[in-house]
Each structure stands twice: as C-alpha cells, then as structure tokens.
C-alpha cells in the first residue's frame, strides 16, 4: 500500500496536470475567435470570399485622397498596386496624414469599401509598421 502522503502528492499532481490542460485548451480556443488578421489592399482584391470578421488593412494614405465632413473621414489606402476606400467615423491619431503609413481596423463592406472603426496611432514618425513595409515593399 502507498502511504497517505504519496496519495496526496498524486492527487495534487493530477490536479495540476488537469488545470494546465484546461488552461491551454481555454486559451487556444479563444485565441481562434479573437485574432485579427492583417491584409493589404492587394490581398483584399484577391479574396474569394468576403470576411465577416474584423480585420486590419495597412498601406499608405494616398496623396490627395483625404476628405472630411461633419461626421466622417474618407481616404484611400494604397499599396501602389491596389487601393481601397476607407470610411471612418472615429478619432484620427495625430500622425495620420497623406503620404504616410497607416493601419486601419474595421470591417469590409465589399472589396472596394472598408468601414474603419479604429485607426492605429504610432509613436515615431519614421516608424512604419512591418506589415505596411511588407505590403508596399516591392512597389
């Protein structure tokens, strides 16, 4: 027979293992539902099926494409091969301007229109998000 202590240890170990498995399962499961994919305008053009999920689109703000009225900001994101129109109703970060890199988060209306709910700010005027760099890399 095993002693009481060994038994306790065993139960303890079992609990630890079970909780680790449960944790990993929980985390991975909700990861699947909560990741946001990044797409360039060209990738959106080549989509076969429109994604209902939230995505991020990145590229350059096209020169002379920003238009503003009392409730929305419109502009075009381009990767110099394809472009997409963005309709945005939120607050604009201060480093947002024409000819600069941008990342917008939101939903695709169709392949030409993107409804943005957030435009991501950055800290450094020289910094370009790696995705944007890649998206416009071979211009």
């Amino acid at each position: 027979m095993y002693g009481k202590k060994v038994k306790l240890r065993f139960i303890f170990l079992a609990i630890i293992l079970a909780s680790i498995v449960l944790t990993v399962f929980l985390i991975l499961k909700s990861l699947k539902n909560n990741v946001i994919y990044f797409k360039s305008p060209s990738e959106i053009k080549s989509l076969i099926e429109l994604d209902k999920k939230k995505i991020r689109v990145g590229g350059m703000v096209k020169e002379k494409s920003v238009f503003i009225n009392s409730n929305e900001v419109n502009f075009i994101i381009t990767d110099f091969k394809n472009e997409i129109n963005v309709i945005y109703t939120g607050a604009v970060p201060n480093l947002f301007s024409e000819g600069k890199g941008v990342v917008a988060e939101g939903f695709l209306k169709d392949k030409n229109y993107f409804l943005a709910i957030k435009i991501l700010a950055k800290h450094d005027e020289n910094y370009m998000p790696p995705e944007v760099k890649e998206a416009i890399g071979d211009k």
Partner: protein
Amino acid sequence: MLANQIGYYSLILGLLSSLLLCAISIKDFNKNSKRVNQNIFTLSFLQLTFVVVSFLSLILSFINSDFSNETVFNNSHTTKPLFYKISGTWGNHEGSLLLWLLVLTLFIFLFLIKSREQPKKYRILTLLFQQIIIIGFFLFVLMTSNPFNYLFPTPNEGLGLNPILQDPVLAIHPPILYLGYVGSSIIFSASLAAVTQNYISKEWGQHIKKWVLVSWIFLTIGIMLGSIWAYYELGWGGFWFWDPVENVSLMPWLTLTALLHCILVLERRTDLTSWVVILSITTFTLSMCGTFLVRSGILNSVHTFANDPTRGIFILIFLFILIFLSLGIFFLFHKENNKDSNNFFWLSKETSILINNWFMMYFLAVVLIGTVYPIFIDVMSVEKISVGPPFYHKLIAPFLAPFLLFMAFGSKLKWIKSKIEEKKLLITFFLISVTLTFVILKNITTDLLFYTVLISAAFFLFFTTLKELLIKKFNNIFQTIAHFGFSLFILAVLFNNILSSEIITNIKVGEKYNYNKSEIFFKKIEEKQESNFNSIVGYFKITDENGKVTWLKPELRFYNQPVVITSEADIKTTFLDDKFLVMNLVKGDEYFNIRYQIKPFMIWIWISILLISLGGSLSLFNKKYEK
C-alpha cells in the same frame, strides 16, 4: 567632446573592473576567512563610480547639445527645454541601456553593503552572478549601442527628441520601471547563489524579501506612470490597451507578485523552496525578454520605435545563455529541504498563497500566449495577425471573481475554524455586496449577470478589507492595505468600463454639436508660440444635461524639430469623473476631429495603484516581522 571621451573610457574601465571583480571574488571564495575581502567593496564602488561618470558625461553632452556625439545628435535639439534635454538622455536606446547598467551596478553595490549578516560564500556568489549580467550589458552597450559614437563633421543642429516623449511623466517613467526590472536581477543572482549554497531557508527569505518588495514597488509605479502617460498623451482615452509592449511589463509584474506572496511563506517556514527559485529566475528572464522584445522590433506594437535587429540578436543570445546557466544551476544543485512541510494542512495560509500563485500563473499564461502567438504565426506562416483586447478580457474576467473571493478569504483562513461570529459577519458582507451591486447595476448595463458577479466579488473584498482597516487589526496591515487597494482598483476599472461615454465628431470653429440634452460648443482657436513648437489651442464649452458648464482647452502642437504634430488632450479631473477632450486637425482643413469622453472614477484607478504600492512600501519599513 571631452565629455564624450571621458564617458567612453569610463565605460571600458567599468568593464575592466567587472572582470577584475570576478577574478578577485573567485580567489576570495576559496579562502577560509569569515569576511569578504575589502577589495571587493572598493572595486564594486569603483565600478559604480565609472558608470556614474559615464552616465553624467552623457547627460552633460545632452545639456551642452554637443552634436559631435551621435546619440545627442539623434535625440536632441538646441531649442528643447533643459528638462527634456536631460530626460532625453534615457529617452533613447543607447542612453536607456546605460541607465540599465547604472542601476545594475548600483544595486549590486547596495546589496554588498546591506547583506553583512549573510554567509560570505553566498554574498560572493551573488556578486559573481550579478557580474555576469553586468559584463553582458557592458558588452552589449559597447559593441552594439555605444552612446558615445563620434560624429565628424559636427552638425550644427540635432534631430530632436520625438515630441511625444517630451513629457514630465515619461521623463521619470523609464528610470522607475528600470529600477523594478533591474531589481529583479538581484533576486535572480541571489536565488542562484542561494541554490548553490543550499541556503534557501527562512533566513534567506527574510533577507531577500526586501529586494523583492523594492523591485515590486518600483515596477508597480513604473507601469502606472506609463499607463497614465498613455492615457493623456496618446489621445485614445484608455489606460491599458493590451499592447505587446505593455504586456511585457505586466508579465514580470505577475511573477514578481507571485514571488512576493511565496516569500511571505518562506520567511516563516522553509517551504515552497523550488517554486521560489523558479519564480525568481522567471521574473528576471521576463524582464530581459521585455527589453529584447521592445528593442528588437520583433513585436508589432503601436508603441514600437524605429530600431536595429542586430541588437535583438545580441540580447537573444545573452538571454539564452542566462536561461541555460540558471536552469543548469537549478537542476544540479537544488535539493528539496522542506523540513517543516510535514504539518501541511489544507485550510492554511500556505494553501491560499498557492491558490494566489495559480491565478497569477494563469494570468501570465494568457498574457504570454496572447503576446507571443502573433510572432509565432508570423514565423510559421505568411498570415499576419494581432490579438485584440477581447481575447484578454474574455479569458481574464471570468477568473477575476473567484480570485477576488480568495483574496478576501485567504487572509482569514486561520480564523475560519475558530470564530463563528467572523463567519456571520462575512456572510453579511457578502449579502450586502450582492444587493448593493444589483441595485447599482439594475438600470445601467446589459450584461447584468456577468458584471453582478464580478462587482459583487470586488465589493466583498472591499468591505472585508475596509473592516479590518477600520478596526485597526495591525497584525496584517500592509497586506490589508494592498488588498484594499486592489479591490478599489477592480471596482474603479469596472465602473469606468461600464459607465464611460464617448462622442466623436468633426466640427468647425463656431459650430455646436448636440447630443442627448448635452452640447459641445467650439468657441474659438488661439495660436501660441513656444521655443520648440507652435500650437493651436481650441476653446470648447461643454454643457451637460444638468446645465453645468465645463471649459476644455485641448491643444495641437506643431513641433519644428522633428516636424511632428501632437495633440494634447485637456482633462478635467474630479473625484467622480474625468472629462477628456482631444482634437485633431485633418489635412489642414477647417474641420477639427474631436473626441470627447466622460470617464468615471478615472482618478481612483491611479489612487488605488498607489495604495497597493503603499502597502508594499510600509511593509518594507516594518521591523516587526524580523522577530
């Protein structure tokens, strides 16, 4: 010019003294004398002096705007106010690493003079391990990011500091955060030294507790400062975005908090020894990872600054060496010596602290996976992804309620057996919390059940800790203050989350914007000139539904060097709420893009974090524990 040379050679001397220190301490380690060789103290002090001199000469170069120094050229400008010239010293990569070094050498020196009653071999080994880290950082600074690179011909003007960093809070945020990060290096070295000497014991627990507390307090306050800065400077009105750069500072905080609780057990009985060592190693590793991830550019973060990949590789290699070294030492030398673990019983403080640790590890796993997964996917496939806040909220929130309940019960476990009245009181508190929450929430939120559970649990902890504070049970006052602060923190965050409201619109000067009985009136703009920027100040008159008027004056700054526009939010803070307004000019058009937010109980978030660290600080000065 001269300062440049002095700074550079001083650094090399610092590295040499590191090597010398290693040699002397290995020699001294094998001697039989009871006391640590006096030369070690002298050398350690010398090393500290060298680094201080080097740091001061960098500051001097910044103050004098000596643009023959590449770091100064890249990050400073003659028109910058003096305060930001100085804070610019550590506002960049090279300078901030020098600051790391400074704190590393400072802490090991303090450790040497503060640990006189500890065994000699243990002290020398701690010094040795710490020197390994220090040498690594010296090499890192000298090889990949020398702050004293010489520029010829000397430019007339510098490139300027990123204006977004020209801010009083951000000027002190890095030093404080580093004190926390680097403080964990002492815990790391000390625990490795203690393992090799088989010295993980009650005495060691009492001695290392101070160091754990110090770095925990600094890390807490450092994170808070960063968060406050993000709140008013980034103009999003949030204080935590689950951004990778924020996450990497949260991870060591979680392990450090777990460690702090374990030390409370260890200082009374020799228990949980392996766990303490593992936590010490993990905390420092995570701090290093933080530096690596932020500096390497691997992370796709909105906070990322332009950077250089070779640095990342250096830190990565260094990190692996440290991890293998520490794990090797742990497995070779560690012996379980749980002398008193026989009388382990389930309803004890130890159990509650273990439960606390389980929660911490779970939170850590969530944050770690959420942060690392996008990198992993990026390497494994062509997809680019990011993990948003909903992921963290969904995984952390459900575990918060039981966590809070355990916090309320945990400290009481000893009494559960004995006192019946205590139990009745607890039940009363519990009922009050639930009813109170229900009454408050009834008309507000849609997700009633979820928030009721969460807020009731927070109220429950709030009341139980408040009661202890009021009846002045001084035996555990520090813990109670910290836990009280935590309950306040959760309450403030939750109510802030539920009750916040936001208006975003584009508006011209002279226009009015109406929304449910409130009005925003954009009266006028005024222009101002400062030494290094011009600015536009907007005057907004806000009338709320009760007719109360608030004036808010957000600002748009046009910095001339580098040419950057920043928007400074204007915030009116009261104990009830923050009124937050930020404006932006899009495309030089006549329309201003404004965001107006009402954020209830914002100030209580900061107050509660201060309370939490106050609990820690008070416990640091307490002598009663060392009976």
